């Protein structure tokens, strides 16, 4: 797949409604990296994901995606975004295939019908997440975990080089968590670069090679996933040493430690 630097943020900052969410962010992601973004709720994980996919503008610093300034980025077929929550099951009914086919639009031109390659990519993506037998089901009849897999299939259908996922495990049953982890592991093995926001490593632990920890909008740790816990008590994650119960310290609304 691709080589070299995929994502480069220098002194990045994001402000939402006048409030700084991300500050002084320096982050480089190389081709083939599999990066977990960890951190407590409100630490800026989702904001980071939304700014590297171009959905939120940077208020400070600069970001380059595939060597192109993020403001003018247009190599959409190379980018694959999986949102945390999506309104795919709301409103007018839609089939699983229809939603997943939206993932091919970066490759398609308006007014032209889908080609055989588009249809094959949709089928392959549904097989990858184990939902091939649900292709013609209505999305809203699927479980939350299956809907999350539909979102991942939609992104995989576009065969992106960089996958950016926002908490793919949130509110997802164990079967789907494992299916999602397996899918991403094979994408990583095939050479995809992955940036995934996680609450805990869980089923992803075996193939995550790098973890960054966000705290109050800053990166407080960047390195091997094994070293995460020692650096930040806010992150409870299961590493290869085995699952353990860790309660994050209570944190007040302003981020100060409560007694």
């Amino acid at each position, binding site marked *: 797949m691709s080589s070299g630097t995929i994502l480069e943020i220098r002194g990045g900052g994001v402000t939402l409604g006048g409030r700084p969410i991300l500050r002084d962010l320096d982050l480089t992601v190389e081709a083939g990296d599999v990066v977990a973004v960890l951190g407590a709720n409100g630490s800026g994980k989702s904001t980071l994901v939304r700014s590297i996919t171009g959905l939120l503008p940077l208020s400070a610093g600069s970001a380059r995606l595939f060597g192109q300034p993020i403001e003018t980025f247009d190599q959409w077929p190379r980018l694959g975004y999986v949102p945390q929550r999506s309104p795919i099951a709301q*409103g007018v*009914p839609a089939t699983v295939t229809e939603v997943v086919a*939206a993932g091919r*639009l970066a490759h398609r031109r*308006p007014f032209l019908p889908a080609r055989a390659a588009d249809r094959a990519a949709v089928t392959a993506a549904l097989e990858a997440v184990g939902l091939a037998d649900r292709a013609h089901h209505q999305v809203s009849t699927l479980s939350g975990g299956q809907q999350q897999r539909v979102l991942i299939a939609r992104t995989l259908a576009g065969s992106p080089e960089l996958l950016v996922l926002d908490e793919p495990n949130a509110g997802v049953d164990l079967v789907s968590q494992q299916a999602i982890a397996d899918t991403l592991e094979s994408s990583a093995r095939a050479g995809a670069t992955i940036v995934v926001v996680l609450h805990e490593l869980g089923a992803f632990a075996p193939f995550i090679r790098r973890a960054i920890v966000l705290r109050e909008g800053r990166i407080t740790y960047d390195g091997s996933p094994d070293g995460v816990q020692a650096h930040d008590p806010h992150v409870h994650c299961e590493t290869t040493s085995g*699952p353990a119960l860790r309660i994050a310290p209570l944190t007040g609304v302003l981020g100060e430690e409560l007694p």
Partner: protein
Amino acid sequence: MTSILLAPFMIKALIAAAVTGLASPAVGTYLVQRRLALMGDGIGHISVTGVALGLLTGTSPTITAVVVAIIGAVAIEALRASGRASGDVALALIFYGGLAGGLMLVSFAGNGALALQSYLFGSITTLSTTDVVVSGSLALVVIALSLTLLPQLFSVANDEDYARTTGLSVPLYNVLVSVLAAVTVSVAMRTVGLLLVSALLVIPVATAQQFARGFRATMLGAMVAGLLASVSGVVIAAYVDVPPGATIVLVALAGFAVTAPVGVLLGKRRLARVPFEMPEEPQQQRVTEPHRHQHGPGCGHLAVEHGDHIDYIHDGHRHAVHGGHYDEH
């Protein structure tokens, strides 16, 4: 008995009803998906200003209505997208501005008030051939764009943020839906009237989505429902002395009411048929590894409720107390 249906004014009415019935639900499907079901109503009210301008200046009210409706629809979309007003508040602002402006203008037009009636309530039996050609062509453009741009318009209406990351110009497609809605309203105002226009955009979609599993299927089903309601409404009005516009809307509503119980049943059956995805039954086996302590509250192992008992997570396994030993769960 059928002779009245072959009268020239009836043929024109039936053609106008058919194209309106097909085009309105096509656009309506996108509006319903975007939770802008009442947008058609808002545009209809703005169009009153357009019609009044036409009556006042002596130009074709259809043309002025199209122009004003498009300006209004784009303004609604701009207000909504800028976040300065939510969708429904944006609608209300423009909705009443357009209606009040139109009523004010029409009062300057002498007997325009009477002419306005035929636009508010429809006047499908008095269409000229030019009216039918203009409405028909506009409706065909709306249908063609709604169908050929379905993948793009669906993606934008279904998940705006994601659509952005596939390189789709979300503002462009949103404005396009608004413009299509404005054109449809201007076409449909001669058929059902501006006050009832929204019904033809929304009701067939509500009917179709009870049965359809997919977006395309909903749209095509809604177009069929719209076509049936419009044509049968006109035919009924030809034999019984009732206003065609209101008849079309009531037939569409009746279609919804009759199919609703079937739709509810179908939906329940469909949900009941969805198989549960169960994890493979974990093997239960006796654990022989030594335990230095009795699992219990506060033993330091994560406790997980599991049916009628509690498992303790121990070295990546779930242990359940069973007699004097632990079972793997």
